[in-house]
């Protein structure tokens, strides 16, 4: 479970409010889609959830643990996929995954089983012993996704995870996201692809200029805005 209460963050000594008094709750078993125009505050929110940025005000808790006061506990149950796969490109894919296994303390048997399964699903088996430097953008993205799945986290936070993936990998990722939440775990992700959000998410939040301007299930959003597609709702709400 993810709980954000009155979270704010500003840049440039308070001149630019990136996130403004944002509150939302993502329940266990829920896929939460986070939408918004460029520069709306999506990545800033995500970075605060995973501890890359410190909020100026408000609290964030992961499964009841405060991300500021109990950072290590939160990190041990959360994994994160950034919007750009900047990973150790001088390591091989397998060395990187093994590093993640070592720091999260994944037992060898689980590590082997999971790595083999996801390498197979994402068609990376042949490249895994090569340096990450030799990978394409999509292959790096798949490696980061496998690394995020490897510790079997309680909460996954993904920032535009579909970017760079081919249609097959995208399809598999959506299945894995659903599978993750069907086990009672939480998933929070940002995207610009309305279709994915509409079909995949249990609930959707729309952020604009740092403020959460809409939040609810697809049916609730449709009722509120009398629009038929999420795209139209999004355009209508963010055109202010």
């Amino acid at each position: 479970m993810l709980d954000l209460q009155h979270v704010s963050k500003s840049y440039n000594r308070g001149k630019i409010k990136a996130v403004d008094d944002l509150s939302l709750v993502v329940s266990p078993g829920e896929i939460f889609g986070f939408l918004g125009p460029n520069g709306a505050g999506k990545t800033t929110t995500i970075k605060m959830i995973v501890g890359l940025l410190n909020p100026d005000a408000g609290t964030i808790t992961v499964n009841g643990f405060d991300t500021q006061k109990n950072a290590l506990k939160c990190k041990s149950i959360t994994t994160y996929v950034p919007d750009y796969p900047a990973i150790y490109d001088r390591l091989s894919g397998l060395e990187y995954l093994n590093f993640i296994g070592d720091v999260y303390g994944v037992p060898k048997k689980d590590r082997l089983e999971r790595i083999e399964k996801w390498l197979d699903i994402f068609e990376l088996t042949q490249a895994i012993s090569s340096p990450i430097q030799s990978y394409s953008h999509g292959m790096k993205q798949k490696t980061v996704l496998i690394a995020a799945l490897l510790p079997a986290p309680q909460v996954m936070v993904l920032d535009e995870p579909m970017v760079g993936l081919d249609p097959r990998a995208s399809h598999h990722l959506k299945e894995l996201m659903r599978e993750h939440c069907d086990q009672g775990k939480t998933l929070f992700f940002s995207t610009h692809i309305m279709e994915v959000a509409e079909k995949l998410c249990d609930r959707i939040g729309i952020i604009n200029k740092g403020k959460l301007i809409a939040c609810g299930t697809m049916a609730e959003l449709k009722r509120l805005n009398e629009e038929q597609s999420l795209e139209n709702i999004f355009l209508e709400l963010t055109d202010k």
Partner: protein
Amino acid sequence: MRRLLTLVRVALKVNFGLSVLYHRVFKEKKDIWIVLVAALALIGVFPTLYGYLKLIKGLYGVLQPLGQEQAILTFGLLAGQFLILLFGLYYVVSAFYFSKDLGMLIPLPLKPFEVMMSKFTVILVNEYLTVLAIVAPVLVYFGILAKAGFSYWMKALVVYLLLPVIPLAIVSLLVVGMMRVVNLSRKKDALIIVGSLILITAGLGLQFVLNRSAGSKPDAEAMAKFFTSPDSLLRRVGAGFPPSVWATKALTGGFSGAGLLNLLIFAGTSLALLYGILVMAEKLFYRGLVGIGEISGRRKTLSQAEMSRMISSGRRPVKAIFRREWRIMNRTPIFLLNGVLTVILIPVLFIVMARSGTGDNAFILKAMGSAKPVYIILAAAGFLLISGCLNGTSSSTFSREGSQFWMSKVIPVTPREQVIAKFLHSYVIALVGIAAGLVVVIAVLRLKAAVCVAAAAFALTGAVALTAVGMIIDLARPLLEWTNPQKAIKQNLNVLLALFADLGVLAVLGIFLRFLVKAGIPGNAILFILFATVILLSSFSYLFLLRLAEKRYQEIEV
């Protein structure tokens, strides 16, 4: 030409981060402390500059009656050019081939020579700053001492501006040629390292041979000639690199005759070499550059057994982070050349200097023989510490992570554990340097085993403090935004600050030693007190580093 100038302007802005710095200091008022650090560093420079000027004046006083004072100029110019020749290699390889903006520049409608010249200019400007400390004081103070006229100052300016051109052009020609060959291979990183080592070894070898041949005739006739000819000493000093002799003669030879001729030779050679690299850039630069970052990994399915062997078990964060540091450092050519290679290079340089000089080695040995054992131990320990710790490994340990630092922030490993792993990595590199230094101490200076053991004990303990100090400085202000790996280690202000701080620690210990000696404390007791002080200093700095880590890992935002 306008295109080239625009490109150079942008490259300089990017390299020095002028726009970003201006924005952060004056608009966001975020990095205002940089102004304070710059002011502090300037204050720190004054005592060194004073010592340097005193040395120049002393030398001038000795050499002027013999008519050999021009050799001071040669020595200064040579030192500057030799530094550029040796370390320019890192700059050139990294700026020409590993800047991340190259991927953006190659598709633009620019000629290869324009791209290469923009990079060359950036290095040139960097070198003006590097040699400012070594060459500028010599040029200026010599002019003042010799009461030089207007023509000297004009020519000094020309010489200063042209000074880095010849060594940089030589290095560029060699590197562009080398990279053309490197790019043909699949094992590019390994070849870059091997190639760079060969170039450095060849440079040192040349210096060794030239110095030996220059100082191999100490007969009476040569001595007589030495004192009667006004340029004998400068020729001897500059034998390793003739451009320094041309520049000296240009400066001291007036505005006609020999002065003008040598200025023309110096400027002509610089321009000819510059033209040479332009031609070479057009022909070879892109052939070496395009695809250099592409590493073709072999595609191979691992068997169950292989996979099982390569995968470890359980939670062991310190070991995992230590291995990550080790692998990334050793597999990134720029980091490897600046870190591990430097700790080996310092002792090698010392050996070359000691072996190629005619009497210096004997002088050191004699001084070592007549000194008290306590001083020999401390001098050797100081040398071992310099060999092991005066490199950028510890003071760039956080900066080297660059845009990948986000992983250190999100993994469930305490800052304390992460810093312990990083400390161990830097300390192991220091151990390699201390071991290399020990080889010099044993083989060249032929010190007794007991002295070596005592010196090593001092160095091993002191290395804890110096490693921690370097890490503390880098942790206080890590440089995480860089496009060129060189910026994380060689052009990182933290490395320079750590160098000054390390020298400061050694200086404070030196002053303490002097105090102990003056107080009449016996040799063995001095050793004991100093050793206890070093242990205290190391413990304190290490514990402070661990405490700082908890605070800074939380504060640093990415």
